[in-house]
C-alpha cells in the first residue's frame, strides 16, 4: 500500500496563545516495500508527521490518502501501525504474551490466529523466550522489543517507528535495524523516524529531511546526504567522504558503512 500526505498542515492549539504550526504544507508518500527515513533537528516536526500517517493526528488542512483513497481513522490504524517514542511506557499486561496479544484480539481475530501472530511476532523480534515473563521485569532493550511486537502483531502493511533505538545499546540497536530490514523483505513498508543519521544511512531506501515543519529534501540517501554534507544533515560516512571527493570523483557517493569502507580502501590503495 501507498500512504500519501498531500499539502498537510498541522497546528497545535489553534486559536490560543499557545498556537504552534508544526507542519507546513508537507507532501510526501510512503511507497510500497520501502524503508523511508524521516530525519531533521529537534522540533522539526518528525513525530507530528509520523502521527499523521495513521491519522492519530488529523491535518489542520490537507489530506492523507491510502492508495489514492481517503480512509477513516479506524481502518487506517489497522493497516498502519505506529510505535511511539519510548513505547515501553505503555506496557500493561501481566505477561509479555498477553501484552502482545492485546491489539490483535481487539481486532476480533480468532484466538488461534491471535496466538499464531503473537508467536510469529515475538520470534521475529528475537523475544520468544520472554513470552511468559512480566513485561515489568525486563531490561530496557527487551521492553522496547515487546512494545514493538505489540504493534506488529496487528500485521500492519506499514510500520511507523518513532525513535525506536533511543536508549538502546549498540548491539540491541543493530538487532532492531535487522528487524527493519527483515520486515521490508517481507513486504512491510517501514517509516523510520530518527535523529541518528548513521542508523538511517544503514537501512533507508529514501530519506526525507524536515526543517521547521517543511520538507527540505527528499530522495535516495546518496542524493540527499551528498547534497547537504554538513554536520547536522549528513551521517558520519558522508562527512568523511564528501571532503575527499574534490578532484577524486572515482570515490563515488557511498553512504552505508561497508560501501564507504570499500571506497576509502580503494582510494588509499590508489585505485578508483
Amino acid at each position, binding site marked *: 500500500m501507498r500512504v500519501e500526505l498531500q499539502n498537510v498542515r498541522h497546528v497545535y492549539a489553534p486559536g490560543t496563545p499557545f498556537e504552534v504550526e508544526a507542519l507546513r504544507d508537507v507532501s510526501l508518500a510512503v511507497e510500497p516495500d520501502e524503508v523511508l527515513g524521516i530525519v531533521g533537528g*529537534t522540533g522539526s516536526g518528525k513525530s507530528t508527521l509520523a502521527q499523521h500517517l495513521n491519522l492519530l493526528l488529523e491535518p489542520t488542512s490537507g489530506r492523507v490518502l491510502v492508495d489514492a483513497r481517503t480512509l477513516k481513522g479506524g481502518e487506517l490504524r489497522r493497516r498502519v501501525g505506529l510505535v511511539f517514542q519510548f513505547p515501553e511506557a505503555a506496557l500493561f499486561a501481566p505477561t509479555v504474551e498477553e501484552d502482545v496479544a492485546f491489539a490483535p484480539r481487539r481486532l476480533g481475530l480468532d484466538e488461534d490466529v491471535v496466538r499464531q501472530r503473537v508467536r510469529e511476532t515475538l520470534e521475529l523480534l528475537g523475544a520468544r523466550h520472554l513470552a511468559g515473563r512480566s513485561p515489568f521485569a525486563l531490561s530496557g*532493550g527487551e521492553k522496547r522489543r515487546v512494545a514493538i511486537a505489540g504493534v506488529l502483531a496487528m500485521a500492519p502493511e506499514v510500520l511507523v517507528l518513532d*525513535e525506536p533505538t533511543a536508549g538502546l545499546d549498540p*548491539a540491541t*540497536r543493530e538487532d532492531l535495524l535487522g528487524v527493519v530490514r527483515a520486515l521490508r523483505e517481507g513486504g512491510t513498508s517501514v517509516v523510520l523516524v530518527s535523529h541518528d543519521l548513521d542508523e538511517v544511512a544503514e537501512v533507508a531506501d529514501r530519506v526525507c529531511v524536515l526543517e521547521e515543519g517543511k520538507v527540505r529534501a527528499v530522495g535516495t540517501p546518496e542524493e540527499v546526504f551528498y547534497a547537504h554534507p554538513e554536520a547536522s544533515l549528513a*551521517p558520519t560516512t558522508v562527512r568523511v567522504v564528501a571532503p575527499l571527493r574534490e578532484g577524486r570523483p572515482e570515490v563515488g557517493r557511498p553512504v552505508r558503512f561497508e560501501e564507504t569502507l570499500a571506497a576509502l580502501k580503494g582510494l588509499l590503495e590508489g585505485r578508483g
Partner: protein
Amino acid sequence: MRNRNDEGARHGGPPVVSCDNLTFSYPGSERAALSNVTFELRAGEYAGVVGPNGGGKSTLLRLINGLHRADSGKVRVGGLDPATEPYLVRRRVGMLFQNPENGLVAPFVEDDVAFGLENLGVEREEMRERVREAIRAVGLEGYERREPHTLSGGEKQRVALAGLLALDPEILLLDEPTSMLDATGRREVLERLEEWRGARTVVHVTHYLDELLDADRVLVLNAGKLVAGVSPERLVFDPDLLRENRLALPTTLRLAAALGLGPAKLRTPEDLASAIARKIGSEARAR
C-alpha cells in the same frame, strides 16, 4: 586476569560518591540489578558509565540519588546515605532522566526550569535570572511559555537540562542526556558539560562512546557487575572488552580502525577525512 579497575585520572580529596559492595534487586526479579559494586569518585571527576541494556547503569544512578535503597553494601554521597537522607543528598545532586517525559512536571517551560530552585527556596529575583540564563544556554529562548507536553522529545530533553543548569548542583547524574538529540543538539549539550569539567562531579551514562573520549574514567557495568573502570583510551583499544560488553566504537573510529589508521587523535569525521587526504598525498608523491 588483567586488572581492569582503578585506572584513569586521579583527583585529590575525599570521595564525594562512594559505593562499597553495593547490591540491589528489583522486587520480583530473580537476578540482582547490581551486585557488589565498589568504586569511589573524587570531587571534580568526570566518570562515564557504559554497558548493555539491563546492565545496571540507570539503577546505579537511582541508588546514588536515593530513589532506591540498597539491599546490602553502602552508597554514600558526601558522607550521607541517600536512602535515609534523600533531601540533603538531593540538594547536592541533580539528575537527568533517560526518558525526558519522566522529569517534566510544570505547566510551562519556565516553571519547569524553575521547579528545582523553588524547592530550594532561592530568592525570587535570583531565580528569575538563573532560569533566564539556563533557558538561553540550551537554546530555548522564546519557549518560556510553551507547555512541555507540546514539545518534541529533543526539546523536552533540553528543558530538563536547563532545569539542571539552573540548579547548578555539585554532582550531576546524567542518564543518556543526548539520547533524543540530533547532531547539533548533542554537540551543544556536550560543550555545556565540558564547561562544568573539574568544577562539578559528573556521572554520565551513555551508549555513545564518542561522548566519553575525554572522561577521566569509564565504568563498565554488565549484568549488574562492575567489570571495568578504565581510561577511555584503554577502552577503545580493547576489542575484547568492547565485544564482551556489547559496546561499539563510534562510526569514525570504526572506519579508522578498519582502514588501519590508529584511532588515537581522530575524533570527528573531518579529522579522518584529513588523515586520509594526507596519506593519499604522501603516497602519490612517493610513487
